[in-house]
């Protein structure tokens, strides 16, 4: 801080606290809603204070609610979400760090074309190509498999782009020193580049983990086996109760619980995250 202006500092705090209140409002309401019973929620504005059904709602969601909605049990879905998010994260990082390595550290014909082909993935989300993509996955026999669930989501322009940015900032001399030291490309990659990318990988893990965690349209389409149910699919199923009763208190409790892992990831990795990005930007 260059100058010392208490009033400005006060304003800054005020602004941030206000900002936090606004940003946190929906989440706060969800938490409050998850502590009431459904008739309270359905008969007027959501109370801003906690109700008395906290334990009841959460224990229901953790134990019987899933079964009551024809879902596998909660921990099973959480585990599936975790597997899916982690696989996608690991896969995306693995293939994009390799691609970025190729693009930055080699000169070869069609390099630019390759870059653009990868970049295009940013522009073609699942929603606009869902039918043909489904067909391919089916033709490849990947329906109802972890591969089908994750592989098509693994291509990543963002990660490739960010890794590329980072690699551009790694001093040329490190590569040269390594070459003089007798390291070939893969050795350089493993011994030098990979350890140096730790913070970036950390930052990307956060982004990608969340990306994987929140998927629901794709899993819903390519799996028919409830064994693959994820939390998001479960949430969706609880919300779109055709003609049924939507138990908002449980939906909210479920939402809060489903938010927890990514929030924890974000909070615990935020330092790393910012450091990772800062180093990228330099």
């Amino acid at each position: 801080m260059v100058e010392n202006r208490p009033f400005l500092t006060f304003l800054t705090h005020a602004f941030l606290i206000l900002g936090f209140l606004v940003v946190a409002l929906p989440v706060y309401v969800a938490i409050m809603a998850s502590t009431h019973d459904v008739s309270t929620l359905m008969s007027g504005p959501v109370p801003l204070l906690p109700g008395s059904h906290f334990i009841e709602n959460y224990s229901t969601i953790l134990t019987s609610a899933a079964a009551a909605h024809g879902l596998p049990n909660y921990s099973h879905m959480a585990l599936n979400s975790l597997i899916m998010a982690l696989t996608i994260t690991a896969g995306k990082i693995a293939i994009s760090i390799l691609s970025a390595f190729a693009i930055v550290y080699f000169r070869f014909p069609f390099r630019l074309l390759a870059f653009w082909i990868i970049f295009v993935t940013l522009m073609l989300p699942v929603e606009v190509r869902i039918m043909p993509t489904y067909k391919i996955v089916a033709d490849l026999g990947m329906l109802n498999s972890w591969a089908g669930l994750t592989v098509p989501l693994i291509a990543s322009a963002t990660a490739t782009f960010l890794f590329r940015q980072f690699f551009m900032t790694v001093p040329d001399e490190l590569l040269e020193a390594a070459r003089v030291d007798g390291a070939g490309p893969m050795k350089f990659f493993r011994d030098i580049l990979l350890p140096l990318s730790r913070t970036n990988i950390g930052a990307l893990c956060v982004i990608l983990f969340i990306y994987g965690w929140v998927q629901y349209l794709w899993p819903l389409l390519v799996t028919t086996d409830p064994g693959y149910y994820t939390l998001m699919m479960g949430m969706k199923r609880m919300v779109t109760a055709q003609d049924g009763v939507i138990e908002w208190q449980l939906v909210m409790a479920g939402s809060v619980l489903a938010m927890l892992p990514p929030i924890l990831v974000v909070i615990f990795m935020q330092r790393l995250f910012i450091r990772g990005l800062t180093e990228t930007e330099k």
Partner: protein
Amino acid sequence: ATEVTWWHAMGGELGKKLEEIAQKFNESQSDYKVVPVYKGSYPETLTAAIAAFRAGQQPAIVQVFEVGTGTMMAAKGAVYPVYKLMADEGEPFDTKTFLAPVTGYYSDTKGNILSLPFNSSTPIMYYNKDIFKKAGLDPEVAPKTWKEVEEFSKKIVSSGAAKCGLTSAWITWVQTENLSALHDKPFGTLQNGFGGVKSEFTFNGPLQVKHWANLKKWQDEGLFKYGGPVGGDQAATMFYSQECAITMNSSAGRAGVINNAKNFTPGFAPLPYYDDEIKEPKNSIIGGATLWVLNGKDKATYKGVAKFFSYLSKPDVQADWHQFTGYLPITNAAYELGQKQGYYEKNPGSDIAIKQITRGTPSENSKGVRFGNFTQVRTIIDEEFQALLANKKDAKQSLDSAVQRGNALLREFEAANSN
């Protein structure tokens, strides 16, 4: 055991119940295993099934909502008609055991049932007895006609018993399709589309215009509150929160009403009608979904499907499902079983839907509506209704426009299904 996959759209507790039924079937024999799979909302389920069919990965059974019926019927190569399946597999299947309106709706022109009715519904009226009382109305007397609905609403609002008199789910299904059927007015040409893909919409007649104009007028007077497009989720909420005294919704909404009406007593009644338009209202029409069998599976699977369908049609299974969910009992036998069990006496109002849908003799206009691209047509109707409420158009203009836009979609459907 041979696996029979069954894709469905029953979220929430209904899904749980559905799975329980499959479970019981599986336990009742050992040759077949029905595997129910939740595939999201109705449209999501249908799309998933189509995508799967195109990829050769289709389920044996898929649950399709009634607006998808046109699409399914047009897809002759994809569908294994139920009547044929049952005949091929030698399972007993008598059209007459089903409720007449159900059969009417899901049969081809020759009277053969193409898909198995499973969760069929029809809209009814729900009202809040406590509010009625507060407004000085007799809580046991529901409004019979739209005129009464208007009068009651006025009383309710002016007495301050509630903020609004009336709301409604499904403006399309309840306030347009059923309205037409009840008053024996055509919704479209060629027997409301039963006669083929060349049909056109005609729901911009004087009755529909009058009704929409009324709804608009009531909205302006504060008597009516819009419950939102498609299923109109807000309608239920406004009813539960006692903001509105009356709502109209699928009979399957009954469970929700009972569940959420913790602070008041709900009443159930048939849909109102205009007594200056028709003396004896016709039957209401069907909604909900049916089970379609898709082509391309092996013989053993179809055998299992047939067995399962027989199981589903058993009176006790049907009655259980019907009583749990509020959907209609599909077969006469199930209805009778309920009567025998004394279920309707114990649960007043629970037979209103059945009575309403079976009253009188169905006419061409009350058999139901069956059009291609109908999901989008409904979206159009919703949009035009919103335009009306938002003062952008009057009732006539919005219905005309809905008909015109709907017809364009029909022509597109015709083109896609005739080449």
